[in-house]
């Protein structure tokens, strides 16, 4: 297969001339990528040296190192990220093993539960955790009654637990898909040669999934490092990088210091990104699907099942807490059923804004991403590497940094874009355009060039071929990019919180604001509606997809 593509792609490469339309599209996309991804990050970098506010200076960096609270923020963020990542991996691996290696109704349910946190704003777990484990939370009370130990969830460990719940699905998804696609005959071979199940998992399965696990770990680490909302709600005043940067901007208008924190947020993400794109890429283990996965030995299975069950229950309890506190007066104090929390007129408007912004962001991200993917894979367009790099880098940039960058560039003259729906759409779209791009490239690599050649031999021009032959084939990739962007945009806060204004407020930042006023019932009610809307939209997409006969 690969040889074939190699051979057939040669003539296309020789035909170095690229159609004007695709060339224009390339320049257009490159300009947008520059304006909406690179420029904001560069602006943060420049600002951190005080340029734009009266000359070049290291003063803000000096302050970063001399003020213990900033250093504490760096330490806390890195430490929380590391601990969360390790624990997530320790849970995600058995969880994925269990789900991929048993085919019961329960394991399918677990699969769904494992992904559930994706549809909720990342900080609702903080809320649920406070309800349960706050200083007088339901569970804390029991513990205090029985053991006399007072626990408090506020602070470092609260943030870690909230992160584990929030970022688990990302790691789980990646590890699961790698384990699902693993060739079972390798495990068979190992066991036929006399290795027990445990040994097989250690020596065959895990190494095969190694790249996926490493990748998952790195992505989760970067996300946890950039976590902004959990420290705000459950951090109990502890310093963390992203939330401190946010407070520096919103509370003190100290953009320079915030930019310095931003640089410390971007650097690790950037390194991880480089490592992942240029070093891990070549180590991808070829996987083939060859029948069902190897079933697990009962004892091993029991262990995996145990870990998975604890995690699944934990996630379910969190969601139940949110739903319950949405429907009772004051959870834990006055458990009378009520719908009061839903009579939130402005909240409904913000939800609607979120749907509109996320929809267009998803359309843009998936559309442009796919187009760029096609051109990267097939056309000899200029700046290929650079544009691909930028689009993928967009995925790795912490939202807080993007948000601050957007404020620096688009606030005031000459753009006057802050507070517009347009800027919100661009922000969300370009943070996720890499997903559409990757989906597009990988789809194009699977498609044989001969289809396009046939079309062009039969007399179709290149644009006609793209429209009639390539675009339909890319539809699944488009859908994948669309769904992902839509879902993540609906619940994202860290970047758009800098860009909203009266009239363009969004649901997720609004819920964060409610949580910040400690209005738990109303925050839960809004979260509940948000979750229902995201699930309904996904259902709608599935329906469209079934009607039109394409698959995601």
């Amino acid at each position, binding site marked *: 297969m690969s040889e074939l593509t190699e051979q057939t792609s040669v003539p296309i490469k020789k035909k170095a001339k690229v159609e004007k339309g695709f060339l224009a599209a390339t320049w257009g996309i490159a300009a947008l990528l520059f304006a909406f991804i690179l420029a904001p990050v560069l602006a943060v970098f420049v600002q951190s040296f005080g340029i734009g506010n009266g000359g070049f200076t290291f003063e803000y960096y000096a302050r970063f190192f001399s003020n213990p609270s900033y250093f504490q923020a760096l330490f806390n963020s890195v430490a929380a990220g590391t601990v969360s990542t390790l624990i997530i991996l320790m849970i995600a691996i058995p969880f994925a093993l269990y789900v991929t290696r048993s085919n019961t109704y329960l394991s399918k349910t677990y699969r769904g539960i494992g992904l559930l946190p994706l549809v909720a704003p990342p900080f609702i777990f903080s809320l649920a955790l406070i309800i349960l484990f706050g200083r007088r939370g339901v569970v804390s009370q029991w513990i205090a009654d029985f053991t006399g130990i007072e626990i408090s969830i506020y602070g470092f460990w609260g943030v870690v637990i909230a992160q584990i719940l929030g970022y688990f699905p990302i790691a789980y998804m990646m590890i699961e898909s790698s384990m699902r696609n693993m060739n079972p005959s390798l495990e068979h071979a190992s066991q036929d040669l006399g290795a027990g199940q445990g040994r097989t998992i250690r020596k065959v399965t895990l190494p095969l999934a190694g790249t996926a696990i490493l990748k998952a770990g790195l992505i989760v680490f970067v996300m946890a490092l950039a976590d902004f909302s959990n420290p705000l709600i459950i951090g109990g*005043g502890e310093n963390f990088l992203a939330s401190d940067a946010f407070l520096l901007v919103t*509370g003190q208008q100290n953009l320079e210091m915030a930019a310095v924190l931003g640089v410390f947020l971007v650097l690790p993400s950037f390194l991880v990104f480089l490592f992942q794109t240029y070093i891990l890429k070549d180590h991808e283990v070829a996987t083939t699907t060859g029948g069902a996965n190897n079933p697990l030995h009962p004892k091993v299975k029991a262990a995996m099942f145990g870990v998975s069950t604890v995690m699944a229950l934990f996630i379910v309890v969190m969601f139940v807490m949110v739903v319950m506190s949405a429907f009772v007066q004051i959870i834990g*104090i006055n458990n009378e059923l009520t719908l009061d929390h839903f009579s939130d007129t402005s909240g409904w408007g913000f939800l609607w804004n979120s749907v509109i912004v996320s*929809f267009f962001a998803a359309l843009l991200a998936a559309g442009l991403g796919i187009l760029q993917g096609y051109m990267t894979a097939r056309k000899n367009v200029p700046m290929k590497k650079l544009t691909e790099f930028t689009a993928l880098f967009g995925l790795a940039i912490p939202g807080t940094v993007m948000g601050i960058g957007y404020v620096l560039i688009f606030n005031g003259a000459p753009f006057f874009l802050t507070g517009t729906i347009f800027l919100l759409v661009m922000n969300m779209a370009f943070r996720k355009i890499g997903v559409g791009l990757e989906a597009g490239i990988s789809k194009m690599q699977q498609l044989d060039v001969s289809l396009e050649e046939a079309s062009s031999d039969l007399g179709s021009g290149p644009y006609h071929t793209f429209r009639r032959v390539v675009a339909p084939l890319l539809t699944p990739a488009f859908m994948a990019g669309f769904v992902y962007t839509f879902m993540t945009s609906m619940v994202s806060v860290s970047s758009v919180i800098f860009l909203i204004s009266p009239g363009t407020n969004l649901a997720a930042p609004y819920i964060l604001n409610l949580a910040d006023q400690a209005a738990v019932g109303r925050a839960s009610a809004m979260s509940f509606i948000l979750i229902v809307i995201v699930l309904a939209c996904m259902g709608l997409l599935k329906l*469209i*997809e079934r009607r039109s006969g394409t698959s995601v």
Partner: protein
Amino acid sequence: MEKMKKWIVGLASVLVLSACGSSGDNTVTMYTHNDEEEMQSFASAVEEETGVNIDVLRMSSEEAWSRIDSEYPDVNADMMWGMLHSFALVAEEEDMLEPYESDTWDDVPDEFKDPDGQWYGWSYWFNAVAINEDLLDELGLDRPESWEDLLDPQYEGEIVLPDPGTSGTAFLFVSTLMQEMGEDEAWDYLDELDNNVGQYSQSGSAPAQMTSQGEYAIGITWDQAIFDRMEEGYPIDIMIPEEGVGFDLDVAWIFQDADNQEAAEEVIDFIGTDEGMELAAEYRSMVTKPDVEGTIDFEPNLIDYDAVWAAENRERIMNEWQEKFD
């Protein structure tokens, strides 16, 4: 594929149409530090009475100020309803406000409004301490009666205080101390209080809520935040420290070059009407119109708070705070 295209185009056009349709011409954009709940009730009353639709963004006072200051002269809002008096004075000084003479405010005493109509004080509020008595009993702690009492080591970790970096409530508290004790004494007090503070919250209303939920026994906050929670049935009580508390005028204003100046003026007019003031009085202890009774039924021990001093010294105090406590 064709079908799918149609679906998507159809969906997109529906969304575009509704997005354009939803924002009418008679919309005024607004920043506020009022809590969501009261602000929503205000907004629907305005819409009913004047037909003006309000788009509002709620932030803590300091956040709102920081935003205004960085956006000026292109502030992303037409007006402000609910902000600290001190900020009105700073904004006036920096020429950010549009004067407007509103007739409905005629019978409001002059001390509550700017002579040129640059800002209007519609209500006032004061610092107060929320106390969860159940929790005090459970923990075996005495009920504090004064600011001084809060320094008692028995309350270690049981006090929640908003962060003056974001919250106007906290700034009022800090500058009250400064005006009452003198600056050095006040810093010493805050230093000592810091030992007992379990958490600094971002919003000034949050301590009332956290105390209500029993997360902390004592919350330093403002009057109405406590009354609201009491009304909702939370087991808390309000405590006015013996030394007295600072109060602040809550103001409304129109920004210069507002996109919809006319609608903003209508809103200012509405706030000054009897209806507007009576509505405000449902949510605030005291409003500025004589004869309209607020929610309070006792005499709070208010000090003679100097908002001008607070405005002039705010930046310096804040910087010192950050160096000491952040």
